[in-house]
């Protein structure tokens, strides 16, 4: 890991403080959520709500039930351990404090996500996790590989986020509320609704991209470019499970249909099997772990597909099992990297002597991962077989896939946690040594918990898993019991088969790896596909920019006016709104004079070959328009028009000095086309104005402003009162645009010159 090998700077006390503050914040959250265990375990739930944007129905409401509490405890608990780990892992790093800011921000966002009861605030937190993940993957921002991975993760999860937002808006529209607790009660109605399929697809796009299901999985292994604590925290234990959380959370609302069942089954199964083969093929510790995380996400998706007590209990249990052992193993991978300078399994071996505590923690975590009794992983595996045999889709296929994946998991566990510590001794870049306590605390605690919960599963069954299953199923399913010994039955036999098969595969691992390597070269690579997709998008952008934004002023005007003609003129014809020119009996001589002035100005501008004459012609047109404003009693507008007209002439005169002299002999090749465009635009605009002014005018606003301008706003000039009081917010936006435009023009004119000096 580059971060660890950077020459450490002497760490200042301020830096260390940043780390410890982060650890404290996470621990405080953990203790806080611990308090909720009692009420939630008793079948209750907690809810807080504040209005956030009441006009849009967005509230900041938080909801704690079994599902969110399980997530919250994992996020804050593992968060505290990972942060403690990072205080040492990144000690002396140049951006030490920044790292903890990102990590704490991420933790808050993730907690907000799992606790939100409002779908829109959930979405805000969802996006925040994507953004903090982007910052953390790209933490080593000097490496192009990190930057690429960060951007890839951001684009994939961000794209899914957009789909999710669309889904949320649709579901809010269908259900009439964004509050999850109210939407949950309307599951039947939503499943019957015509938009159900659209909503489901949009939600699943969000969940699948976030939780890296095939075909969106490729960003997760690349995200390993992040520092190891980040991989342990975001990309295995928490953030990637946000998609799983979403599917679990929406289970009462969207599940129980065939589409849900089959989509999740297929995505989950293929992800799990594909990922477990990929995992045993890797040689980098972190890559192995990344692919086993993919396998876990696939398995969780697979069990959320089903609608039986066993499957959901299996999902809840495996969620906890996986977070415990995976965070531990990632941290151990970091320790190994820290201590030996390499993560290549082929270059590691015999570390047990130098690192006894790490070895023990790795062994405990790996045994849980491999599913040996009496670890929680064993119970999880048993439940998976119960669940797989009970699914409504294809029990045999699902059970077979789970068996294969679990056996390969055992291989991966062996590769990560046994080979580096036992088999032989290799020379590593640095001499291995035991890690300090801050690094060891996380893996040791998590590994011991994995064993403890296995031996006494009641510790988590009653307070977390049962309420969690209730939350996912909407209270309709009976949670299965967590048992170490349930007698000799099919799941136990499958467990035995798994372990035998796993050990056998571990024996022939090298040959299997060679075979898989050969296979992979024949398969299309999603990662390269992504590059091609990005290249294609960029090529398209370049092409359309060249066409639409040629840099030639005339071209721009053609494009703008052609769009206007087609859009507005087309609409006028299509809707038949233009009813012809009405009678205008009120026209007097003064009106005709103004009209003649404008026509004369226009004619002069179009036929002259001198710029100054053209400007003067335009000025005449502007004065004519100002006169119209005066005639119709809008002095404010008239004054503004005159002033702007004056300034435009000044600006034009100044700018004209820089333009090349117009020579009549150059000719104007496009004059006919220009005339055609100008005439067409003029006609369309005139038609719009006539249509607007002949239609009935709604005077409601005018009456309101006339009535309340003096009473409410103490002003008699309605135009100004609207500008500065009734619509002050809009005016603020407008003057902001004016200021930005002025400064942008100033910067363009001034910038390069200043640089040259």
């Amino acid at each position: 890991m580059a971060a660890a090998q950077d020459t450490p700077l002497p760490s200042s006390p301020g830096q260390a403080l940043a780390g410890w503050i982060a650890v404290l914040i996470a621990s405080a959250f953990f203790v806080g959520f611990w308090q909720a265990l009692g009420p939630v375990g008793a079948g209750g739930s907690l809810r807080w709500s504040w209005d956030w944007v009441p006009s849009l129905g967005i509230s900041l409401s938080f909801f704690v039930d079994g599902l969110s509490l399980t997530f919250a405890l994992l996020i804050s608990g593992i968060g505290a351990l990972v942060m403690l780990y990072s205080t040492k892992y990144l000690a002396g790093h140049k951006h030490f404090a920044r790292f903890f800011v990102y990590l704490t921000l991420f933790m808050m966002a993730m907690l907000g996500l799992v606790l939100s009861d409002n779908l829109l605030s959930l979405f805000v937190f969802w996006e925040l996790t994507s953004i903090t993940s982007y910052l953390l993957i790209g933490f080593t921002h000097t490496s192009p590989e990190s930057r690429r991975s960060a951007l890839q993760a951001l684009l994939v999860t961000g794209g899914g986020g957009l789909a999710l937002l669309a889904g949320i808006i649709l579901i809010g529209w269908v259900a009439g509320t964004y509050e999850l607790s109210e939407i949950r009660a309307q599951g039947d109605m939503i499943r019957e609704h015509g938009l159900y399929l659209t909503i489901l697809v949009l939600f699943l796009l969000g969940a699948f991209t976030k939780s890296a299901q095939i075909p969106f999985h490729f960003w997760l292994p690349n995200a390993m470019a992040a520092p190891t604590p980040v991989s342990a925290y975001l990309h295995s234990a928490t953030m990637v499970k946000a998609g799983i959380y979403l599917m679990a959370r929406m289970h009462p609302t969207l599940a129980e249909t065939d589409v849900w069942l089959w989509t999740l089954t297929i995505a989950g199964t293929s992800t799990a099997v594909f990922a477990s083969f990929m995992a045993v093929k890797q040689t980098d510790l972190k890559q192995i772990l990344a692919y086993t995380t993919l396998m876990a996400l696939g398995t969780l998706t697979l069990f959320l597909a089903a609608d039986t007590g066993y499957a959901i209990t299996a999902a809840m249990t495996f969620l906890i099992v996986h977070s415990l052992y995976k965070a531990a193993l990632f941290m151990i991978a970091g320790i190994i990297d820290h201590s030996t300078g390499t993560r290549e399994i082929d270059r590691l071996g015999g570390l047990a002597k130098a690192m006894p505590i790490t070895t023990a923690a790795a062994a405990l975590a790996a045994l849980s991962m491999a599913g040996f009794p009496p670890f929680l992983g064993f119970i999880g595996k048993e439940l998976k077989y119960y669940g797989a045999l009970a699914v409504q889709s294809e029990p045999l296929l699902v059970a077979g896939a789970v068996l294969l994946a679990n056996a390969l998991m055992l291989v991966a566990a062996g590769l990560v946690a046994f080979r580096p510590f036992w088999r032989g001794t290799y020379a590593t870049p640095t001499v291995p040594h035991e890690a300090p306590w801050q690094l060891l605390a996380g893996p040791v605690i998590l590994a011991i918990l994995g064993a403890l919960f296995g031996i006494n599963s009641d510790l988590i069954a009653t307070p977390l898993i049962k309420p969690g299953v209730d939350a996912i199923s909407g209270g309709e399913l009976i949670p299965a019991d967590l048992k170490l010994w349930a007698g000799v039955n099919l799941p136990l036999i499958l467990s035995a088969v798994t372990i035998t098969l796993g050990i056998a595969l571990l024996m022939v691992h090298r040959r299997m790896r060679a075979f898989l390597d050969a296979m992979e070269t024949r398969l299309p690579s999603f990662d390269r596909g992504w590059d091609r997709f990005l290249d294609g998008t960029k090529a398209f952008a370049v092409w359309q920019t060249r066409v639409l934004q040629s840099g030639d002023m005339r071209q721009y005007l053609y494009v703008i006016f052609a769009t206007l003609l087609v859009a507005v003129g087309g609409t006028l014809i299509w809707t038949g709104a233009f009813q012809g020119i009405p009678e205008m009996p009120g026209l007097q001589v003064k009106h005709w004079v103004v009209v003649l002035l404008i026509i004369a100005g226009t004619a002069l501008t179009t036929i002259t070959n001198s710029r100054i004459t053209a400007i003067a012609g335009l000025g005449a047109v502007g004065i004519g328009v100002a006169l119209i404003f005066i005639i119709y009693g809008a002095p404010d507008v008239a004054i503004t028009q005159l002033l702007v007209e004056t300034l435009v002439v000044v600006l034009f005169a100044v700018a004209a000095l820089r333009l090349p002299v117009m020579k009549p002999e150059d000719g104007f090749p496009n004059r006919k086309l220009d005339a055609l465009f100008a005439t067409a635009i003029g006609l369309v605009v005139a038609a719009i104005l006539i249509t607007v002014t002949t239609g009935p005018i709604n005077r409601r606003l005018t009456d309101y402003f006339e009535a309340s301008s003096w009473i409410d706003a103490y002003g008699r000039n309605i135009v100004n009162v609207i500008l500065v009081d009734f619509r002050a917010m809009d005016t603020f936006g407008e003057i902001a645009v004016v200021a930005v435009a002025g400064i942008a023009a100033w910067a363009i004119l001034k910038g390069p010159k200043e640089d040259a000096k």
Partner: protein
Amino acid sequence: MRSVILTAGARLLVALLLVFSVFMLLRGHNVPGGGFIGGLIGAVGFVVYAIACGTAEAREALRAPPEKIAMVGLGIALFSGFMAFVMGEAPFTGQWLFIGATETEKGLPLSSVLVFDVGVYLVVMGAILALVFALEEEV
């Protein structure tokens, strides 16, 4: 190209235009005028000055860089919006103070709305002058 007549005239004209622009700004709430128009008139004043005496002198007369004036104006407008916030109302709600008001007399009205209009005035003047000065110096 310096014309003595233009230079001499411009000095008078600029003073008049500036006074007039402030007059327009202040009266805007009840009769035609306001920050936008005031700002435009103020800008025209300085543009005339710049044409007559050169941008260097006009910049000196303005004292502050125009782009900064625009930013300060934007800040003032935003600040006036926040006044309502402090009073517990929605942002940009007008806040009024009638100094020396009695039963019959309204007193001197002061308002956050006027502050807002001053902001508009400064933004319009600053932005236009930033553009015009830069353009003229470019030539």
